[in-house]
């Protein structure tokens, strides 16, 4: 389950998550929200965690700095940040990382700011926690940061309370909060989902600008493939707490390998039969059935899919592209900055780990032929034909 490219790269990735498992003990049993997830993130790069709600993407993101409540949560596996294993780090150590090295922006700006403090106070708080500066200096920094995230009249807005600002403004404030410690890694958990479409675009642009300016890596959690296409360098597709597919963003869109990824793409408006959602439900998180997690909704499922463990991640052969006419054999490329166009991305000839394309499906394993996945299927009929 671990990655195969451990020693070959010249530099350590900024963040490497290996076999992460986060589970919660509840009255109804142990909920395995994240069940063996691995991925890496290089400095300055953007990686998207994609999946439906309940896929474990938020828990994965919040496990990194142990923001999930423990207990009842339990985190195991390895989370290496600059080579340091965070699962073994003390709470004090994590606190000094949070906000300063690893910052978060959360989904709903309406609730993410404390209603009884001014927004300036809340930005300055980060500075005060991590640096010994005077209150006035911290406030000045806060006003500068508010200015940097394009808030009009930052000095006046610093004295405003959250309820006096619009949703988009609040999200800008939260971005300022995240920037205040000048982090190397920004974890953005659905930062635009709760916002209007036009505001969404503004916030995405803002994050991209700041990423370039501060040279941050961004771990972007989203269910929205439109956002993925816009921001990602590489993508990790999660389903029911497991990684289904890891791929560079162009590979995922041009040649999705895993049936689940294909289903997601097929449900994208303007692609395939766009009927909105994949039929069926996530398996029970306390007691998942054996075999592939996706089997109950997968139109390709065969008997073996319902047995044993979830299939391991296997490299995807370059020529197993979906439909005829899709870009076959895209030249591999190294990591590219967020705003890079796909032309720039394909510039580097180096086939490093960042170009790896793996999928956890039997048909990409050794015993099956991936071509089988290319036959036409109707996603909406999937459940009826192959369910249970």
């Amino acid at each position, binding site marked *: 389950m671990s990655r195969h490219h451990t020693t070959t790269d010249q530099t350590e990735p900024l963040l490497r998550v290996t076999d992460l498992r986060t589970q919660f003990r509840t009255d109804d049993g142990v909920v395995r929200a994240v069940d063996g997830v691995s991925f890496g993130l290089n400095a300055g790069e953007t990686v998207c965690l994609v999946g439906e709600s309940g896929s474990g993407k938020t828990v994965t993101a919040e496990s990194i700095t142990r923001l999930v409540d423990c207990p*009842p949560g339990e985190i195991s596996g390895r989370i290496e940040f600059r080579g340091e294993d965070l699962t073994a780090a003390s709470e004090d150590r994590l606190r000094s990382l949070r906000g300063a090295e690893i*910052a978060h922006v959360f989904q709903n700006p309406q609730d993410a700011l404390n209603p*009884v403090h001014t927004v300036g106070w809340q930005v300055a708080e980060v500075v005060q*926690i991590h640096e010994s500066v005077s209150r006035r200096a911290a406030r000045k920094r806060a006003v500068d940061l508010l200015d940097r995230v394009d808030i009009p009249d930052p000095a006046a807005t610093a004295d405003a309370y959250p309820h006096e600002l619009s949703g988009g403004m609040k999200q800008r404030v939260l971005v300022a909060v995240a920037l205040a410690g000048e982090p190397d890694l920004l974890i953005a958990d659905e930062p635009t989902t709760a916002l209007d479409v036009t505001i969404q675009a503004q916030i995405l642009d803002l994050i991209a600008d700041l990423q370039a300016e501060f040279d941050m890596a961004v771990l972007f959690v989203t269910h929205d493939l439109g956002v993925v296409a816009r921001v990602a360098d590489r993508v990790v597709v999660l389903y029911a707490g497991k990684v289904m597919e890891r791929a560079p963003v162009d590979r995922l869109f041009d040649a999705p390998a895993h049936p689940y990824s294909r289903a997601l793409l097929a449900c994208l408006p303007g692609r395939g039969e766009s009927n909105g959602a994949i039929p069926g439900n996530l398996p029970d998180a306390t007691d998942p059935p054996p075999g592939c997690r996706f089997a109950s909704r997968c139109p390709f499922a065969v008997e073996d899919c319902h047995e044993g463990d979830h299939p391991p991640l296997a490299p995807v052969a370059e020529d197993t592209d979906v439909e005829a006419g899709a870009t076959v054999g895209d030249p591999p490329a190294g990591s590219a900055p967020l705003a890079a166009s796909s032309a720039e991305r394909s510039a580097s000839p180096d086939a490093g780990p960042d170009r790896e394309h793996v999928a956890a499906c039997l048909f990409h394993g050794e015993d099956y032929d991936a071509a089988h996945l290319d036959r036409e299927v109707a996603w909406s009929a999937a459940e009826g034909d192959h369910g249970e």
Partner: protein
Amino acid sequence: MGMKWYVVRRVAWAVVATYLAVSLTFGLLMVTPNAGADVAAAQAAASGQDYDAVRERYLERRGLDRPVEEQYVDYMTNILTLDWGYSFSQGEPVLAAIGEAWVYSAQYFVPSILISALLGYGIGLYSALNRYTPTDYLGSFVAYFGISIPNFWFAIVLILLFGVVFRLLPTFYDSGVALLSVQNAKQLLLPVVVLSTASVAGQMRYSRAQAIEYARSAFVKTARAKGASEWRVLTRHILRVALVPLSTILIADVLAVLFAGSFIIETIFQIPGLGRLALEAIQQRDTPLVLATTLIPVFIAILGNLLQDLAYVALDPRIDYGDR
């Protein structure tokens, strides 16, 4: 609608509420047969005088035979000018009797309020942040105990244990003891414990529930993601926000619980405070004193509510002044 207008409105409402409360007592008096007159007449009849004649004379002397409006205006004026009448059971003006009694009530009442707030919030918040630990379970147990135990029975059992069996503490209050003395502290210990048990428990449960709710909130997660320490999260974020609803219950519930409790406490421990004064007044059918001892807690409650509304202004920037 600004803050000033809000404050004006709340103060105005407090005045209206006071007026309504006083009027209500007047109304109740009017629709009830006059107890004092009956008592006087019955006494007179016992000593051989004519029942009805005495009764009438009694009413006349007090101006109770006049039209209702006149009596009402009189009554309200008297209340307003602090002319609250003469208490025959105490043999002195009502206000004088109250002036002597309140010191004794305050001696255990004020510490009880402080203890309720500090201990109640403290344990409640601590439990909320240390859920599922033995301390939390112990706290919950104490809270259930506190809200369920009848305070009069609790007092009796404590007196039996500490006063009768172990002989550690006095079994009743001695008003001859100096205010600032160890002995006074000792004799106030049980009353304070009994009175504050229920409200401490109530505050604990409520503040724990509030804190747990906020501990799960998104802004607390933001604070933790900033690298804030648990203490900072607790004081600057959770407690600061929780103060808004907690201030509400402090006034409304604690006062109600403590008022009811003070009658019990003063009866059991024989403390000559306001509660005992009220009970004696009722037993002796001493109407002016009954009214006074009823109105004082009502005034305190109205004042408390007003303070609480004003506290909102200071505590909660979200307050919608126009809406309240």
